[in-house]
């Protein structure tokens, strides 16, 4: 009994002196927080790179981790609407409630694309705040990282300078990489592609790729074979160079389309951990651009 008490006391004192505990909803924000927080943060990432971020369950493990979190780093724009509110509520943690400094949404620092002009579920899985898959544009990590460094400094004022310095170092490396990626992706500018789910408008906006059609008739709605044949016919004249899907999308629609439209099917990692090459933010974009270039040849 005594040993248990000592153990509990030990645990409590440990948690009192530990670093900032970060609850990242998706791998890209987990990776970014590690870059900026460095040794000052303890990052828990709620989902994996192979997981559809729209459909996550409010698992007990997530509630347990949320209880001790100092900061949630989420995408926002309703991406996590299906699970995060329940986890935050059940955690009984006042610091991370929406509106508190412990609640950070990356999409707040980004100009949103595809903001719907009308909200109707007849249009499928639309998000009122715009398309939430912002992380496919590498440029946004500068803005989000800047805001995140400020927020970390706000929560942990003693180390604010360190967060700022980490961000500056990250931004320098990132800008160099951006220049490299943009140069490498120059041949992709203006090419036509077909996408399975509307997961990449930010990537296309960044690299100048043109999406001529999507395989899903409405966002989140599974296409039928009849619909897919119609897409094949519709885009024939536009000569798409490839069909793109995210690692977590069901392979069947894009494989079917690839066979019938005679174009390569490309599986992009979408986030850190989306494939074996995408180990961190830098390799995520190295891999994404390499895959696109390979398919466009």
């Amino acid at each position, binding site marked *: 009994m005594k040993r248990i008490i000592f153990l509990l006391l030990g*645990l409590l004192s440990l948690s009192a002196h530990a670093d900032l505990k970060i609850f990242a909803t998706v791998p890209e924000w987990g990776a970014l927080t590690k870059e900026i927080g460095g040794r000052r943060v303890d990052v828990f990432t709620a989902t994996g790179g*192979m997981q559809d971020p729209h459909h996550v369950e409010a698992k*007990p493990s997530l509630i347990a981790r949320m209880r001790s979190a100092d900061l949630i780093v989420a995408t926002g724009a309703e991406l996590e*609407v299906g699970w995060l509110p329940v986890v935050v509520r059940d955690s009984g943690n006042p610091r991370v409630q929406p509106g508190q400094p412990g609640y950070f949404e990356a999409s707040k620092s980004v100009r949103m694309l595809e903001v719907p002009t009308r909200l109707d579920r007849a249009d499928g899985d639309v998000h009122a705040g715009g398309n939430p898959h912002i992380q496919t544009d590498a440029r946004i990590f500068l803005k989000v990282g800047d805001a995140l460094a400020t927020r970390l400094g706000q929560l942990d004022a003693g180390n604010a300078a360190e967060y700022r310095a980490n961000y500056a170092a990250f931004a320098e490396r990132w800008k160099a990489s951006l220049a490299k990626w943009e140069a490498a992706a120059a041949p992709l500018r203006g090419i036509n592609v077909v996408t399975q789910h509307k997961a990449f408008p930010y990537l296309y906006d*960044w690299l100048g790729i043109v999406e001529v059609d999507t395989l899903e008739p409405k966002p989140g709605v599974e296409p039928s074979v009849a619909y897919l044949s119609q897409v094949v016919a519709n885009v024939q004249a536009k000569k798409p160079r490839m069909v793109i899907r995210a690692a977590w999308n069901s392979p069947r629609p894009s494989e079917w389309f690839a066979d019938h439209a005679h174009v390569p099917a490309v599986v992009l990692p979408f986030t850190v951990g989306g494939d074996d090459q995408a180990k961190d933010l830098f390799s995520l974009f190295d891999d994404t651009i390499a895959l696109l270039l390979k398919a466009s040849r």
Partner: protein
Amino acid sequence: MKSFRPHAVATLFGASLIALSSPASAAGDPDLKALRDEIAQMKQSYEKRINALESRLAQAEATAGDAQATAATAQQSLAQAAQGPASAPAPAQGNSFNPEVSMILQGSYNNLKQDPNAYQITGFVPTLGEVGPGTRGFSLGESELTVSANIDPDWRGTGILALAPDGGVEMENAYFQSIGGVGWGNGPSFKGGRFFSGIGYLNEQHAHAWDFADAPLAYKAFLGNQLGDDGMQLKWLAPTDMFLEFGVEAGRGRTFPGADNNKNGVSQGALFAHLGDDVGVSNSWRLGLSLLGSSPSNRSYEDVDSSAAAVNNSFSGRSRLLVADGVWKWSPNGNSTATSFKLQGEYFRRRENGTLSSDSLLCGGCTDSYASTQSGWYLQGVYQFMPRWRVGLRRDELDHGSVDIGLVNSGALTAADFPLLAAHDPTRTTAMLDYSPSEFTRFRLQWAHDNSGLGATDNQIFLQYIFSLGAHGAHNF
């Protein structure tokens, strides 16, 4: 700011020197007093003007800083500069504070071999709720209207109206719950009002989120479908990486196994603990243990005695229910959109001690002791074999156990006078197939071989729809 500040400080310093030195020279002199007041006023007005100037300067600096930052951002990348400003905040509208409203529409076509009006779970005291398999043919199910919103920074409120197809409206749930900590730091959360109890696994979920069209037999027999008392709940989440939660509830015993006692104090209460975690990225689980205690007085039910006369039997005493539950979910890489499997089971054990009275004319109205120990369980598996399609299989068993009726032991009445408590072990096997074209729609085909009633084996076919309109709240695990 640097050129301005020393001057302001010097002025202020001079003014305060005068103000401080004046009382020393000649206190009480009216002229001097007037002078002092004047100086004090001057000082105040200076302070005001300095503050105003300082804030104006800070504003100007911030604007300049922003402009600088904007310029820097613009330089970063030409393409980025073309993007324009970050997203504008959502426009404030008059109805922005409106609560989230949603409605669940349910209905089914039922094909039942046995008359649903004669449905019973033989061997188990009838519950006060509606536990039968529904109506034959086409029927509208219960429609659920949910309204919820944050009330203020500390509380959230939820109201759920169950609209019965024949026109009745029932307040199914109406509760307030704390948002984060109840001001006692991390961990505790409080709920009050009418809510589904946290005991077991399925109890807290609403019927539209169940994986089968109806509740397991154990829920029907021991909780009258679902336990939703009026009262309060306190939960505490342990500060561990593994999910560990404890809860305590106190209520009035509005529903079975309680009997609305018309008594002050607490007539029904529960304790529960939940433990859960992940195994790798593909598996997660939760285990639970719950104890429900109730002291119903005059909990009555209708039966038919051996002379074929309708009688009213009523129980007073203590009822203790133990529930052990477990759920395990698997999905490759945690991606439950593609394929997933869910295994779930619960075990119930109930002991009741007290008195049972009968108003049967055969004994002229009599009362004697009553004791029972009964149990039941269900186990179900649901497999999503491709996106949007799931199959499920469920097995229900109830064990009649021991039922000791004092009135029968003493010879005042016979076992034939309590046909609803006759020795019988109900079982049921259920299979289902469901298809969900979108998150908000589900169609389900369910078949059950139901042996709940003694000598009344039923074959049930349900074709069900569930539609969800409006704000769609997140579901629990």
